[in-house]
């Protein structure tokens, strides 16, 4: 039974693997079993929402219904790169170093 067909209450090992890929989190085998059980409980808990009638109710993204403020596209601050990169794990010539991708 696929999770999304008849109900939203069970999460499968395949789903966990996909979620971990999306979230860039690796779980070892022990963690995977515990996480599976935890997520099942979480999903049961949040499934209560399905029983609430929200017909005609608009989603609320900001608690005061405020819109994002805009500002003029002007330079107000200068970036001090060396200072900001002082906490980086690996930099060279102002660039962040990561393993080769090509």
């Amino acid at each position, binding site marked *: 039974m696929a999770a999304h067909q008849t109900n939203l209450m069970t999460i499968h090992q395949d789903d*966990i693997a996909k979620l971990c890929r999306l979230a*860039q989190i690796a779980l070892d085998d022990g*963690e995977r079993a515990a996480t599976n059980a*935890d997520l099942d409980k979480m999903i049961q*808990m949040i499934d209560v*929402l399905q029983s609430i009638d929200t017909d005609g109710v608009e989603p609320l993204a900001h608690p005061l219904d405020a819109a994002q403020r805009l500002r003029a596209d002007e330079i107000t601050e200068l970036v001090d790169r060396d200072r900001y990169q002082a906490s980086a794990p690996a930099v060279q010539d102002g660039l962040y170093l990561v393993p080769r991708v090509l």
Partner: protein
Amino acid sequence: MDAFASLGQLARALNHGDFSSVELAQEHLARIEASNPTLNSFITVSAEHALTQAAAADERIAAGTAGPLTGLPLAHKDIFCTDGIRTSCGSRMLDNWIAPYDATLVARLNDAGMVTLGKTNMDEFAMGSSNENSYYGPVLNPWDPTRVPGGSSGGSAAALAAGLVPIATGTDTGGSIRQPAAFCGVCGLKPSYGRVSRYGMVAFASSLDAGGPLARDVADLARLMPLIAGFDPRDSTSSEQPVDRLEALALNLDESAAMLPPGLTIGLPEEYFADLDGALAVCLDQARATLEKLGARCVDVSLPHTAAAIPTYYVIASAEASTNLSRYDGARFGHRCAHPTNLDDLYQRSRSEGFGREVKRRILTGTYTLSVGYYDAYYVKAQRVRRLIRDDFLRVFEDVDLLLAPTAPNPAFPLDQLLADPIRMYQQDAFTVPASLAGIPALAVPCGMIDGLPVGLQLMGPHFSEVELLEAGMAFQTETDWHQQHPEATG
């Protein structure tokens, strides 16, 4: 000097010349040093920085250029960026991170001449209700060291209860100021959403996060609020609502003469009282009687969508957290795994090693509810229910000025009791998440003791009613002395 002196008392003594700011800082640092090995309320103690700030404050006082809180010590929750002092957010991920800038809240308090003693312990990335999710170990409750202090601002609340600081900052996404305040017998204010700048406050759930003060009495909260509240162009959701009434309240503060506004009507939402533990119900009954004696009219009201608040909150907060925490990738700052073989390995191992179990659980939950096929069923659905919850409050505030409720469903619980059962842990937030979802301000105030452990009431008000909440809290404390009771052993 009295370890439990209020900010107001310390300010008077400092300006009177009873002691210097340096002496005040030294004494507090000594207390922190003595208690921290057991209590664990601080992640970082910034002694050198504090003494430099205190010396500068003494010069300002001597020169006559001091503000009302110049020279007084405080501690920041370790979620606020502090230039030059580590900001760990309770996580291994940021164990090595020193922010290159100050949070707006920190900068404003530095400018006011306050002295930063250190950074307080917290649940990792503010996710937790017990402070057991910290990479730096749990904080113990000063009232009973076998119990939790609440979370996520547990270090700030415990430090206040133990007399280590006169005031501290915290953040509240779903109750993280109010619940630890209640568990430790201190006061805490979650301001309206947008009232206090989020700039430099490590993000958890951006539509919910609110910075605010914790203190031993409500008057001290009122003293700090005008310094940290107000518009900040660096926070895109900062409110332009004026702070003049908060400034006026702090300027003319006479807590001994505090009164309730005439004709104040307080609603008691029946959903918060329906299954309340007997001893806690008695404490709330007494609080209601005290408020009535002070002139309030109390009426029963209903907030029908209250039970939906926990699932709504855990969908929205986890979704926003999964997005916000995607920035921790091991490439630019924070923890990086050893010898990454490729870019995916760098991301995955850095994040898996850097985050603790609860943070991973919430990231995965948020990833799930935001993923294709579930987005509408969970995330958009929760946003719709969020509007119903907020509208419950808007409707009830047409009839009443404030709401009275418990802060937490029980006093502080034993360490380890709820760690293995996240769903039961989440129920700790049942009374605090509704105000967070609605973006309204809420104040936690001690209102009794159960078996030697403090419990707190919660007052909630309409958007930007911080002044009314603080006035009501101060009036309540003219008639009660729960806030003047302190634990005997402080670690």
